[in-house]
């Protein structure tokens, strides 16, 4: 079954993985919003709602892991990465504990709740902690696939999910992505477009515009493993295309674009454009209107690609 809302996929995954008695699930008063309640209904004895107390939740998860359980911690992206940051750093990661943090409601596409609930800094915050794995699946199918890999992996993982529906990217095949492994979704030769999470379908649409209206062949990468990042795939792609555009529902500082810039600048420098939320807070609105407001729609992606090609590649 394909879920259009990734957190629904997460809830369904919890039902299945809950058969494994090592799994415990924690939330901070967001059981229904995160779909952790799917687990709660089946395995109430291994479910803990700690109330609105994210710091305590992260520490409790560390302690459960210390005794052999695999805790899956879930809340909104801004609360997980912001309120619990130092507990994630010291109690979980420095302690070397096997905790999986699944944060929903990431990015400006949270929509109407506005800036306070739109976590646009979480990738940057999580990526700087030594040893933390950061995953941003593109749709419900990849969510389940990467959740399986995250549970198999022994160590801390942060997974970022959106609030709303996404278009299904993996309609008729299983994802080949993994921890440290991204993949080419569309092959191309003129420009590489790297995207993650909800922006992947928009990158695909942007590539279609480029092809249909301008005859430009864009290669689209699903960079769902932001840390560790798939250096080889990115370098291989730009060796072919010679330039790269990145697009994410996250601040332009410290996110996927920055991670890709670190790879390119130190290995194979090519012209690069990072698209994301500029240095400002989000606002209330419908998700797609917000993407347009912040210049992240498929049309903006195609335009940015054209500018990059015009200004740098073929001046």
């Amino acid at each position, binding site marked *: 079954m394909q879920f259009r809302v990734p957190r629904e996929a997460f809830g369904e995954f919890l039902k299945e993985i809950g058969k494994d008695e090592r799994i415990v699930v924690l939330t901070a008063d967001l059981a229904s919003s995160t779909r952790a309640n799917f687990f709660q209904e089946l395995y109430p004895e291994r479910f803990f709602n700690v*109330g609105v*107390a994210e*710091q305590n939740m992260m520490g409790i998860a560390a302690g459960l892991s210390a005794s052999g359980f695999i805790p899956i911690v879930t809340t909104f992206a801004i609360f997980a990465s912001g309120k619990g940051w130092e507990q994630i750093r010291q109690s979980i990661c420095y302690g070397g504990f096997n905790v999986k943090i699944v944060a929903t409601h990431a990015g400006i596409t949270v929509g109407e709740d506005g800036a306070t609930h739109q976590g646009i800094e979480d990738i940057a915050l999580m990526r700087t902690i030594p040893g933390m794995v950061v995953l941003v699946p593109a749709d419900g199918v990849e969510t389940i696939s990467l959740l399986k890999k995250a549970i198999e992996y022994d160590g801390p993982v942060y997974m970022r999910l959106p609030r709303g529906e996404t278009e299904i990217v993996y309609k008729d095949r299983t994802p080949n992505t993994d921890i440290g492994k991204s993949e080419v979704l569309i092959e191309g030769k003129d420009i590489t477009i790297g995207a993650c999470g909800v922006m992947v379908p928009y990158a695909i649409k942007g590539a279609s515009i480029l092809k249909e209206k301008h005859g430009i062949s864009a290669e689209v990468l699903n960079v769902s493993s932001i840390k560790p990042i798939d250096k080889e795939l990115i370098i291989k792609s730009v060796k072919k295309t010679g330039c790269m555009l990145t697009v994410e529902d996250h601040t332009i500082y410290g996110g996927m674009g920055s991670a890709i810039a670190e790879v390119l600048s130190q290995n194979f420098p090519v012209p690069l454009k990072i698209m994301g939320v500029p240095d400002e807070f989000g606002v209330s609105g419908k998700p797609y209107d917000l993407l347009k407001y912040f210049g992240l729609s498929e049309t903006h992606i195609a335009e940015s690609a054209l500018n990059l090609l015009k200004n740098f590649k073929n001046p």
Partner: protein
Amino acid sequence: MKSYLIFLRTNLKKRKVKVDEASLKEFEKIAREVRILTLKSLTRAGSGHTGGSLSAVEILVSLYFKEMNIDVNDPSNPDRDRFVLSKGHGAPALYAVLAKKGFFPESALWTLRKLIPQPESPRGYVPSILQGHPDRKKTPGLEASTGSLGQGLSIGIGMALAGKISKRNYRVYVLMGDGELQEGEIWEAAMSASHFKLDNLCGIVDNNGLQIDGPVSSVMEIQPLADKFRAFGWNVLEIDGHSFKEIFSAFEKARNLKGAPTVIIAKTVKGKGVSIFENKVKYHGVAPTEEELKIALKELGEDAV
């Protein structure tokens, strides 16, 4: 395996010392030796937290040499009792206790806070197993990594919950500082420990009354502490944190109180055991000099540095 564990537990219980005057003397001797090792390691490190290490010595010795069911030869036994040093800066005293208990040789104490030169290793140095603040991945016998204050009680709650859902009878002990109780996470944790009815959890407050910037009461008052914990649903015991008799008896009471967690508020003296360090804010975060160490060792009955 199970019968082995039962054997181990009864064996450990048998080893528990009856508290008569002679055995009290024995615990006092261990405490004195722990103070000596702590101060020597701090002086050799050249930095570290003297006051809050010394105030916790009797509590730590009671836990590791009497109260806790732990076996140095079977450190990951799932039924072992757990200890979390939430006030991570008290690490030097804990390291001395772990060394005396046999988790690692006493000689490791002289590497406290140091990068150890090792020309043949890829980076030219190797880190000490004894970091400035507890790192469970490096130090044998440690259960959690702490140092940034306020986090240990939550970890202890996770361990206690794990004990409940896996139906194991181990107990969890968390030692907190009093200044540390100013952290909000402690009270999130306190609320949840009683909500989850964690009677297998025992908190201890090393109530020495001083923090880096001065007396706790003038920096940010935490009193009435017993009332606060009671209001959060805990059993509260108040004792002299340097009296082995009172510590032993509090741990025994805590073990028998069911349905809620227990906190032992242990009144202590910062820098306890060495007159020049006692009740001095200055020694919160500085190590003894060679001169001060000489005075301290003399007071503790040892001459050789």
